[in-house]
């Protein structure tokens, strides 16, 4: 009787769970690539610091080389900015890779769990179908009782198991969907980070191009700008490569491509590693560029100082005036009294072809308490509005003090 009752009533059995594929990709490789990106970013940061510190030490040691030092000041600022920018870009990529790896690992774990559960559900479904078939075959009047709408405890139990099975299969399908969504979101985050990193370095490339165009008539600063560009352009190559990866494997349109896209993005870490990080190219190139910059700067400084004569010049100035800064226009250097009492000193390199003989040699402009100090140590008139053209001409001539004379003064403003 019981067997008969169990055969009565329709039992709706859910379809089997979908076929599951674990999201492809190597989270461990992505993590390893992130570590290398971070190491490269750290190397760039270290080199940026070294470059800045080195420039500071040149000034602290009171070395002077006119055009070379002024150009170095400019180029090291740009090179340091490039290094910092590229370092930040790499750190951004590293962060994106870590996020991607974590999401991928989570998604793969979820998918593996879902697959195991799906296998179990398939077996449950097979058993249920077998039991229903057995119930159908034991029906004393085939098609008569089993096809009616009557329910017995046995058919209700079968339907209940079938409903539970349907719920479990739906949960597995949701887990698969979650895994896919996790992976897609990780791809998009990584793609955005790569785009941002690329835009940062595109800006650097634009700056380099402008710099090249702007220095066509500037030969004095060429060496240093070349070094700066080497650093900048080398890092841009890196960023462009990263952009290739982003465009080739992490296009946001993958949102619609489900697991097929995941399989492509799974190679991102290995592609990064193969193209840019396998030989620590970034860190090596940055270190080499910085070493060149430092070495050439020192060589240029030592070549032009001829024994560091400006050390004596700088030593004449009050300590509180600091290391000085490149002056506006030309390759001069200036120091300004920090208290703002109007004193400053500016040294300009000589211009061999200048019509004024006093400007053909390295010369000094001395201003003490808003008073111009002349070649003879005298205070020159400041009331320029009252002077004739001839007097202005004489005033302008007298305020150029040859550096060689000024170095013999008893202090920076008194002859």
């Amino acid at each position, binding site marked *: 009787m019981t067997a008969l009752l169990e055969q009565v009533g329709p039992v709706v059995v859910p379809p089997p769970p979908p076929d599951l594929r674990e999201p492809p990709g190597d989270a461990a490789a992505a993590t390893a690539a992130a570590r290398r990106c971070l190491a490269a970013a750290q190397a760039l940061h270290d080199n940026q610091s070294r470059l800045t510190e080195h420039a500071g030490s040149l000034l602290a040691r009171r070395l002077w080389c006119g055009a070379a030092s002024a150009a170095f000041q400019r180029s090291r600022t740009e090179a340091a900015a490039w290094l910092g920018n590229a370092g930040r870009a790499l750190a951004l990529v590293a962060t994106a890779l870590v996020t991607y790896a974590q999401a991928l690992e989570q998604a793969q774990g979820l998918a593996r769990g879902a697959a195991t559960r799906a296998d179990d559900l398939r077996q449950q479904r097979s058993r249920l179908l077998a039991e229903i078939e057995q119930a159908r075959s034991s029906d004393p009047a085939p098609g008569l009782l089993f096809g009616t709408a009557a329910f017995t405890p046995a058919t209700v139990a079968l339907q209940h198991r079938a409903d539970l099975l349907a719920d479990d299969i739906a949960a597995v399908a949701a887990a698969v969907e979650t895994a896919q969504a996790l992976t897609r979101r990780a791809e998009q985050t990584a793609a955005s980070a790569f785009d941002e990193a690329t835009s940062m370095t595109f800006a650097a490339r634009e700056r380099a191009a402008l710099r090249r165009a702007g220095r066509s008539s500037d030969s004095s600063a060429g060496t240093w700008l070349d070094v700066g560009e080497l650093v900048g352009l080398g890092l841009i190559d890196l960023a462009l490569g990263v952009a290739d990866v982003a465009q080739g494997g992490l296009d946001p349109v993958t949102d619609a491509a489900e697991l097929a896209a995941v399989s492509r993005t799974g190679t991102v870490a290995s592609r990064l590693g193969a193209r840019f990080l396998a030989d620590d190219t970034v860190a090596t190139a940055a270190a080499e560029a910085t070493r060149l910059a430092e070495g050439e700067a020192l060589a240029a400084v030592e070549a032009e100082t001829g024994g560091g004569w400006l050390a004596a010049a700088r030593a004449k100035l009050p300590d509180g005036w600091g290391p000085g800064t490149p*002056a506006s*226009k030309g*390759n001069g250097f200036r120091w300004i009294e920090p208290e703002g009492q109007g004193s400053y000193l*500016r040294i300009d390199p000589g211009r061999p072809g200048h*019509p*004024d003989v006093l400007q053909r040699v390295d010369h000094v402009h001395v201003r003490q308490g*808003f008073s111009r100090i002349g070649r003879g140590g005298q205070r020159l008139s400041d009331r320029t509005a009252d002077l004739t053209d001839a007097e202005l*001409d004489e005033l*302008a001539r007298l305020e*150029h003090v040859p550096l060689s004379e000024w170095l013999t003064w008893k202090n920076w403003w008194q002859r």
Partner: protein
Amino acid sequence: MTVRFPAMRDEVLFALELLGDADRQRRFWLSPEAGRSYPDLDWVIRGLFDTVVLPDPVLQVGVCVYDDEVGLLVDLNRVLEPLIEQLDDVPDAEYVAHPTWSEVVRLAGLAAAVLRARDDAEASRPDPVGPDAYADPHG
């Protein structure tokens, strides 16, 4: 109210007047009688940048400029500083020949006129400048 350092203001004003005077530039900067040391563009640059009035004149308000003069100087700097960065250490004649130079002259002349008018007004007051205005702060 007067500025703390009128002598510094004089220097800035003279630099602006030179920069805003195309006629003087033609006579002294482009003249074949080169060999003179008449205040050249370097003088102007020292008068404006080494006195730290440019590039950020707001820092010198009360020192040698008044707050309502800052805008004029900022406008001038917006044209002048990029030109210096572009041309750097070329002869003065190349600056004068640059397409944007006329704008530099115009803005400098405008600033000079405003500063001059202010100073003339101050000078007409009973006690315009104290006796210590030109004192040597170091001795």
